[in-house]
């Protein structure tokens, strides 16, 4: 696995360093701790050590060049490994090629005039209050209404989105009122939802040094979200029986509805999976909002079943159907497809036996549900016919480890194999 070598901060006040001399050449091997280059800082000339072992694949900075702290100077990897992805984008000029603004080709100038150091023009243009794309009030109103600011045309100076633009957007699309829903059945879950609404939305859990390192290391391997996958085989006989019985009673509750409910309850018991990675901490959500992937003709969208752990099956079923229908008709409001804390993708009805799903950031996990199928199973030493389903959990390794994911899956299986536990 190739890694980037950047200009390290070798003193408290160092902002840039000058590569005086490379001590290794491209193709040389290097060990962690071996000197890679002589670097002149604002304080002294020091030897810069490699933080990783491997082969020097590319020396990007030239001797004598000033490089800003954090900028790429070399790549260390395995011989023959493709490192092109780590190189500066082809379009952007390599730092070494930074010349005078007049495009006059003066190849010697750069080498002879090392004082022509980092161009301050490299940064973004100085921001002024006028360059904001939305007023603070508009930002807050959009967040509260679940509006996607990017979709709004601002009428303020330089297209700034302001209060009147939000008001116009809200007037155009009044929040799709859940028209005349049967109420009484809802009362209990509504009061529970209200109680949870008054509590904190989430809790920030500090990262331990170990978790910090895991986060950093794994992003290097698969970024930006380092996935791992756990698959479990679930006996669905009882769910299948329950589903059939419900269907006979003309109920429209589906197997997927039961899985949503089971996953929501399992999340309640394993809040570490109902979380987000937030850079220097993990956000553990107080509420369980399940995003359910709905295939569209030209893509997919994940409408959100809020507080799924609190709602009875019938309500989940009704809401899921309504969300899915409106998703296919592209009539969802932005607040109906944002804010999930966990997602479920079910390709079982399309005959997929098992698969791995990609996490929907910033959620920490997604459950990929395969088909419920009849298979030969061994019970008490004898082969018999059973209903089985495979479910695969993808987990953000920065947030949780394999054992935590496995425990969640065990709880999920317990609920599905003993559906009465959900009541």
């Amino acid at each position: 696995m190739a890694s980037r070598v950047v200009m390290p901060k070798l003193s408290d006040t160092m902002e840039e360093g000058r590569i005086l001399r490379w001590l290794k050449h491209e193709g040389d091997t290097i060990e962690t701790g071996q000197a890679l280059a002589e670097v002149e800082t604002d304080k002294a000339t020091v030897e810069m050590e490699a933080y990783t072992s491997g082969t020097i694949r590319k020396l990007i900075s030239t001797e004598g060049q000033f490089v800003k702290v954090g900028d790429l100077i070399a790549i260390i990897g395995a011989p023959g490994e493709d490192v092109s992805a780590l190189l500066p984008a082809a379009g952007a000029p390599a730092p070494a090629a930074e010349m005078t603004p007049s495009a006059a080709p003066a190849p010697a100038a750069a080498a002879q005039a090392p004082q022509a150091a980092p161009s301050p023009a490299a940064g973004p243009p100085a921001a002024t209050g006028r360059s904001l794309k939305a007023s603070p009030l508009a930002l807050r109103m959009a967040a509260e209404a679940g509006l996607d600011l990017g979709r709004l045309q601002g009428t303020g100076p330089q297209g700034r989105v302001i209060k009147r633009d939000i008001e116009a957007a809200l007037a155009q699309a009044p929040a799709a009122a859940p028209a005349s829903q049967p109420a009484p059945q809802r009362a209990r879950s509504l009061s529970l939802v209200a109680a949870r609404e008054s509590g904190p939305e989430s809790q920030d859990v500090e990262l331990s040094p170990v978790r910090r390192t895991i986060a950093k290391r794994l992003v290097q391997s698969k970024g930006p979200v380092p996935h791992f996958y756990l698959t479990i085989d679930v006996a669905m006989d009882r769910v299948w029986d329950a589903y059939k019985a419900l269907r006979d009673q003309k109920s429209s509750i589906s197997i997927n509805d039961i899985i949503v409910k089971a996953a929501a309850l399992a999340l309640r018991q394993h809040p570490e999976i109902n979380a987000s990675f937030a850079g220097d901490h993990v956000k553990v959500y107080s509420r369980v909002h399940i995003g359910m992937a709905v295939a569209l003709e030209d893509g997919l969208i994940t409408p959100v079943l809020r507080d799924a752990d609190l709602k009875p099956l019938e309500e989940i079923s009704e809401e899921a159907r309504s969300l899915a229908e409106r998703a296919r008709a592209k009539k969802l409001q932005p607040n109906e497809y944002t804010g999930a804390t966990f997602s479920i993708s079910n390709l079982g009805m399309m005959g997929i036996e098992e698969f791995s799903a990609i996490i929907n950031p910033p959620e920490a996990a997604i459950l990929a549900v395969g088909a419920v199928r009849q298979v030969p199973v061994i019970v008490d030493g004898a082969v018999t016919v059973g209903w089985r389903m495979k479910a695969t959990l993808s987990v953000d390794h920065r947030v949780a480890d394999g054992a935590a994911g496995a425990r969640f899956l065990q709880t999920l299986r317990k609920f599905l194999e003993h559906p009465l536990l959900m009541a």
Partner: protein
Amino acid sequence: MALITYRDALNQALREELRRDPTVFLMGEEVGVYQGAYKVSKGLLQEFGPQRIVDTPITEEGFAGVGVGAAMAGLRPIIEMMTWNFSLVAIDQIVNGAAKMLYMSGGQFKIPMVFRGPGGAAHQLAAQHSQSLEAWYASVPGLKVVAPSTPYDAKGLLKSAIRDDDPVIFMEGETLYGSKGEVPDEEYTIPLGVTDVKRRGTDVTVVAWSKMVTVALKAAETLAAEGISCEVIDPRTLRPLDDGPILESVRKTNRCVILEEGWPYAGVSAQIAYQVQQGAFGDLDAPIARVTGLDVPMPYAKNLEHMVMPSPARLIAAVREVLYLD
């Protein structure tokens, strides 16, 4: 309620406090025999005698220092600056003496005194005699700074300033002396550090003090005819600043314009703008605007003087800008 001038309201406050407390005395240039350069101390020499109404030579630094000493010795001096422009020769006594004495004496000497006099531009008094120095004094820990806009506020605040145990910079508006307003017949005081709403409105918050309140109210009247409702807020005391009512207003209107007669750079309006964005950032729909005196010494020529001073027209333009109307 009597309709009286700002000058007479101040005169009443001085008279009432001189009667109330024998340790109070007034000192300054022309305060006695001449009855005050602006007639604020009219009749006081006759009533209280030369021991308590003290005429001084033209020596601002000297009598400011005498005042600090008198305050340390237990009296309650009121030091009149003929105008605040002249305080610049006394500023060492004010900033290094009055403001710091309580701190540097470890709490042994309180300085219960008032420095008062007219501030701001009048008409064609030119660069040296037209300055608004509230930002200078408001930046000093240890001082309180008051700048009333109406006869009612002037009287109630001056009485509180005289009774206050800390040095108070009391800046009167030179062109406000003749303005009239209703003042209760019975005694009253207004506590320092309490912001007042001068006009209720819903569309934009306009902050102004001293004679800029007049400018703000005039602009608000014009804007009301266009259907724009301004809320005019007068902090009255610039240090300590009571920003609660300002923030409350901005949370309602989502926009704020601050008016200041003085210079723009590091002005009191800059401080207020900072506090508004800190306290009500998520409620702002437009950048906070300031309308101030221009960044130049005051010109003598009448037409240029008008260009430098904040006017209702400039305020109206700023209000329209924060309302995204142009």
